[in-house]
């Protein structure tokens, strides 16, 4: 479903250029849920933004369902949608939920707007009485449900999730993760999930790639992650550090370049 070959993404020019992604390749099969894990600056979100067409400044190959992402094919938005980290920033504060959810339908000339908006609200567990509310009348978890509903309005096959629960309380995180798992099954979605949280990826994905400084350190299936049996020292350290504080482990941490 998704193929990425030798993707390089840089920001800036000449000597000040930052190579955020330095040549990575991976594939995601139809219906698969693929995790991209790494620390800040590893390039994981940059990969997602290039795939979503939000950043066009890259080289290499990227295709989704046979469509070349670089060509900006008009069919891409109906195939791929994205959910962002911060539901306080990703919804227009002066648009009602109704307007937020109707907009993609109007842009793509899809009719039957009211029924589709109401169905989407039910699908994400909000219900139709949320239709004419403003974002400031919603909690963080409710906003993230609206953002997920918006991403699903065009019935995409691929959902790109950029840290979809890291701005939420843990009890709300559980609700959103359950929702995403349910939607994935019901709508047969292919998912790429970017997260720094290994436990969230273990819960949501079938396979994952670990990134560091713009490169993929290793790919593995979730069973390997659950057994805590990665090949690379970098991944082992990441796993150790995510298991909570340990004074001796802290002293042994090294920086991987």
């Amino acid at each position, binding site marked *: 479903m998704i193929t990425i070959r030798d993707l390089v993404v840089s920001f800036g020019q000449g000597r000040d250029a930052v190579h955020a992604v330095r040549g990575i390749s991976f594939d995601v099969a139809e219906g698969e849920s693929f995790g991209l894990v790494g620390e800040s600056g590893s390039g994981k979100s940059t990969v997602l933004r290039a795939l979503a067409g939000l950043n066009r400044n890259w080289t290499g190959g990227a295709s989704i369902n046979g469509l070349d992402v670089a060509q900006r094919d008009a069919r891409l938005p109906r195939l791929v949608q994205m959910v962002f980290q911060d539901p306080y920033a990703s919804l227009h504060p002066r648009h009602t939920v109704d307007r937020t959810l109707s907009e993609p339908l109007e842009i793509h000339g899809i009719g039957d707007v009211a029924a589709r908006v109401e169905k989407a609200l039910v699908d994400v567990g909000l219900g139709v009485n949320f239709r004419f509310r403003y974002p400031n009348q919603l909690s*963080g978890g409710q906003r993230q449900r609206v953002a997920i509903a918006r991403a699903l309005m065009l019935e995409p096959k691929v959902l790109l999730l950029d840290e979809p629960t890291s701005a939420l309380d843990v*009890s709300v995180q559980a609700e959103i993760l359950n929702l995403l798992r349910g939607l994935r099954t019901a709508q047969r979605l292919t998912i790429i999930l970017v997260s720094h949280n290994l436990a969230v990826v*273990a819960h949501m994905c079938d396979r994952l790639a670990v990134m560091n400084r713009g490169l993929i350190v290793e790919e593995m299936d979730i069973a390997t992650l*659950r057994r805590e049996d990665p090949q690379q020292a970098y991944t082992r350290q990441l796993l150790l550090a995510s*298991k*909570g504080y340990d*004074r001796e482990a802290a002293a042994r941490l090294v920086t991987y370049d």
Partner: protein
Amino acid sequence: MKPLLEVEDLRVSFATPTGRFDAVRGVSFSLGRERLGIVGESGSGKSLTGRAIMRLLPAAARMEARKLSFDGIDLLSASARQLRGIRGARISLVLQDPKYSLNPVMTVGQQIAEAARIHGGLSAREARCKALEMLEAVRIRDPERVMRLYPHEVSGGMGQRIMIAMMLVPEPDLLIADEPTSALDVTVQMQVLAILDDLVANRGMGLIFISHDLDLVGSFCDRVLVMYAGRVVEERAARDLAAATHPYTQGLLRSLPRIADDRAELPTLSRDPTWLEA
């Protein structure tokens, strides 16, 4: 030994157009030279509790307490002048986001040296040395260069370590850290915690560690208070956090995904109205 900090029946409320809102409702605890964790979700009152100890609440907030004493000083009756002598010098506060807490128009070196001059009474030259020393202590490579940078030129993780360095320059007796590592990568987080850990162990500093991360608090602190809707609903030794008895704490622990488990559905929290009073 007398506790470093005693808090009894602390209450913080706000007047709103729809009536009074009680954000902190009768919190009591005492703190020695130890690591005390306060955990809770957003709106639980954990951050306001930390700020109330510093007497740094928004102007609209009303605060009451039966007792609020720090090292024998009654913080409730202390004058503004006395409080200024305590804040920064003896009690320090580290906030979550370095983007909003560092002065954007001063270099890192100037800001840390300022803390050392004002609270430590050092000369400009001594303050500079102290600033360099603290940046090294928080594991910043090339501190001479970082001293010359402005806050926008450093990463989030480095900004957070700079803030911690600044707060530690006056060698406070009590550090209140409000989500000090939430913006950091897990490996940097571990290194920052190790610094705080050593300060408690070696210098006898008291630490209040405010966080939403139960696993982190459980593994890092000595003792944990769990807050819900402005009250402490549970207090435990941190190593026994997994054996929590309050349904709220249990619910939070269960709702966390874990690397090793393969539950298809995470249990979500259903909030019982009786928790508000229990």
